[in-house]
C-alpha cells in the first residue's frame, strides 16, 4: 500500500505490517530531512502532495515492483506538511523470501516515487531564502527566493 500522511510516520508500526513467517528478508528505506542540500544550510522543509494522483501513481509503482521482484509485502508512506531536521519524510519497507528481491523492490519503489509521484519539497535555508526543489528556471529561482 502507498499512502500520503499528514501525521508523523511510525516506522515500528509500519514494519509490523510486513511481518510474515514466509519472509526471510526485510529491507527498509527511510528518507530523513538533512541539514544541507547543494551546499546550503537547511533549516526546515515543507512537503506538499497532489493527493489523489499521488496515491494512484504510488499504487502503480508498488504494482510494478511486485511484477519485477518476488515480494510478500510492500508498504510506502510519504509525509506531507512542515518537517524539521532529522524528521522522517518517507518510509519504504519490503518483506520477501530472499534479500535480493527485498533490496531490489525497496530501491525501485523509492527511486520511482522520487521521479514520478506528484510530491513537492520546499527547502528553507539558514540564509533566509527558500526554494521549491527542481523547480528552478533559467531566470531567478522559481521557488520564491527573495532577490536578496
Amino acid at each position, binding site marked *: 500500500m502507498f499512502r500520503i500522511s499528514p501525521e508523523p510516520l511510525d516506522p515500528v508500526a509500519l514494519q509490523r505490517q510486513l511481518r510474515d513467517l514466509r519472509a526471510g528478508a526485510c529491507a527498509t528505506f527511510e*528518507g530523513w530531512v538533512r541539514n544541507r542540500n547543494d551546499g546550503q544550510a537547511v533549516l526546515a522543509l515543507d*512537503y*506538499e*502532495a*497532489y493527493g*489523489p*494522483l499521488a496515491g*494512484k*501513481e504510488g499504487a502503480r509503482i508498488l504494482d510494478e515492483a511486485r511484477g519485477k521482484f518476488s515480494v510478500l509485502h510492500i508498504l510506502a508512506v*510519504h509525509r506531507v506538511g512542515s518537517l524539521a531536521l532529522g524528521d522522517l*519524510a*518517507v518510509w519504504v519497507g519490503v518483506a520477501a523470501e530472499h534479500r535480493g528481491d527485498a533490496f531490489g523492490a525497496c530501491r525501485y519503489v*523509492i527511486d520511482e*516515487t*522520487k*521521479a*514520478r*509521484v*506528484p*510530491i*513537492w*519539497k*520546499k527547502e528553507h535555508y539558514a540564509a533566509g531564502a527558500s526554494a*521549491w*526543489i*527542481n*523547480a528552478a*528556471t533559467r*531566470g*531567478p529561482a*522559481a*521557488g*520564491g527566493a527573495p532577490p536578496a
Partner: protein
Amino acid sequence: MKKTVHVRYFAVLREQRGLAEEKLATETGTAAELYEELRRRHGFALEAGRLRVAVNDEFAPWTTALREGDSLVFIPPVAGG
C-alpha cells in the same frame, strides 16, 4: 466553445498564482493552450515542457481537449523523498 474548468495549483505554481484553486471560464481548446493562457496571465516561470498535466486526477497528454467541468492540475517537477 466557452467552458468552465476547475484548476488546482500546487507548490511553485500555487505560490505564483497566489491561490490553491479556481474555477475558470476559458475558450482554449486543450490543456496545453490553457496552460499557456494562464502562464501569460500570471507570469508562471516554468515552461510547459517542464510540467506534466493531470485531467480529472489522472495524467493526460497536453493535447487533451478540454470539456466542461474538467478538473486540471499542472504538475511542476516533482521532488518527493
